[in-house]
């Protein structure tokens, strides 16, 4: 299958602390990949390296056959192809719901406002927030904010959606609404790379699960294999701790 993003020998250090060590990993078109692992295993850093919010210390990120870590590559254009959903939502506080989904389209993709609003409303409807287009982020609950954040990322019509622990900052009763939206997106054939602590969710929607520990990929494979018959001892230990 066609690979959308391919990561080769990626490493990242903060000072002398090595967070990611020689990561090799790829996401294919239409695939839903869940990255699991304990806190501090480097999974969020991996995701942030993919869209260059953290600058990798070494390695390559191949997108459409080009290494985007080359100095000459236009990282802004590359980022528009990746939709990012943050743990802390990070909606633009100075814009209402609609404009949160419109501003990127207009300023970066240079779409005209009517077109941008049409697209924004379409995706706000997908996440069930189309009735709130007048609201400011401060008026919304956590789950609503996260759904708007998903619509904002979708409005850029990216090749891949990146989710960085999208439900970790939510109250338990709001986790469900966000996961439901993500399940629907997964079914629609969107390419998704999800860092998550929601094991049940990963089991259900992932085509492939990646288990990370101490900055390396320990094991990866289909969810049945990872959750039911993990090969590596570290994976078994982690699952025993989290599933009970």
């Amino acid at each position, binding site marked *: 299958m066609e690979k959308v993003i391919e990561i080769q020998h990626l490493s990242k250090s903060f000072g002398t602390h090595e967070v990611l060590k020689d990561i090799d990993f790829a996401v294919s078109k239409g695939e839903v990949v869940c990255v699991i692992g304990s806190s501090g295993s480097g999974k969020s850093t991996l995701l942030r390296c993919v869209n260059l919010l953290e600058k990798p210390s070494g390695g390559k990120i191949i997108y459409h056959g080009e290494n985007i870590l080359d100095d000459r590559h236009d990282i*802004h254009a590359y980022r528009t192809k990746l*939709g990012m959903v943050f743990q802390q939502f990070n909606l633009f506080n100075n814009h209402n719901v609609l404009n949160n989904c419109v501003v990127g389209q207009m300023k970066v993709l240079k779409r005209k406002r009517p077109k941008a609003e049409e697209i924004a409303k379409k995706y706000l409807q997908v996440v069930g927030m189309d009735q709130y287009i*007048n609201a400011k982020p401060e008026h919304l609950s956590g789950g609503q904010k996260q759904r708007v954040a998903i619509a904002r990322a979708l409005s850029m019509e990216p090749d891949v959606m990146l989710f960085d622990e999208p439900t970790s900052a939510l109250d338990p009763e709001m986790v469900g609404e966000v996961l439901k939206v993500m399940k629907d997106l997964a079914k629609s054939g969107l390419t998704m790379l999800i860092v998550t602590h929601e094991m049940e969710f990963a089991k259900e929607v992932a085509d492939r699960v990646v288990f990370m520990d101490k900055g390396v990929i320990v094991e990866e494979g289909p969810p049945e294999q990872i959750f039911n018959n993990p090969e590596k001892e570290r994976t078994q230990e982690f699952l025993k701790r989290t599933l009970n």
Partner: protein
Amino acid sequence: MSLEWVITILTDNWPMFLRGAGMTLLISIIGTLIGAAIGLFIGIVHTIPMPERGLKRYVQKLINFLLSAYVEFFRGTPMIVQAMVIFYGSAMAFGIDMDVFTAAVFIVSINTGAYMAEIVRGGIISVDKGQFEAAQAIGMDHFQTMINIVLPQVVRNILPATGNQFVINIKDTAVLNVIGVTELYFQTKSVSGNNFRYFESFFIASILYFIMTFTVTLLLRRLERKMAGPANYSMIGGLPMQVVNPEDKEHKIKE
């Protein structure tokens, strides 16, 4: 009797007081606006990400150094001294014959700019890091991020401090009388020089200064409340909790 003198002075000299107050207000307004623009500019330049190597890095370091030098110098010297140096210095050293009004606006602007640069820096730091990251993640470059996302929030954050600077400017333009700007203090000095009623004349000036500063304070508070936005929002579409008609003009989505 003092009160009688106050009335006499006012009836005889009210055009002079009014012209002085007008001049004070004009210099403070223009000075604060230009100063705020300088401050925003320096704030943006200071936050441009530093290239890791190459000539650009040195150019940027040099610019940052010069801007910091400007800020520190004008924050660290009295405006009355700056006024003398700039007004007489520009004439003597460079042969530039500035008219008094231009000199006054120039001095207040660059002085305010130095203070505003620090205020803006604080305002940018106070914007959540997630806002920058979210803007970058949808592909905005530094200037797009600043103009569309960060600066609107900064302006709201720094509005109280800017208003404070405006009030300070109204009062501090009094020192510009040393270069002969016909602002309120200068005019009052002229009036009292004629009638030798210093207390009454300057009492009138103090009231005028207070009216100006207090009005500005009240107006800015209203502006702050307005910028905070409405406490409520209206839903679009047929929900049972909907109480307003989205077709209503005031509830229409703003461009």
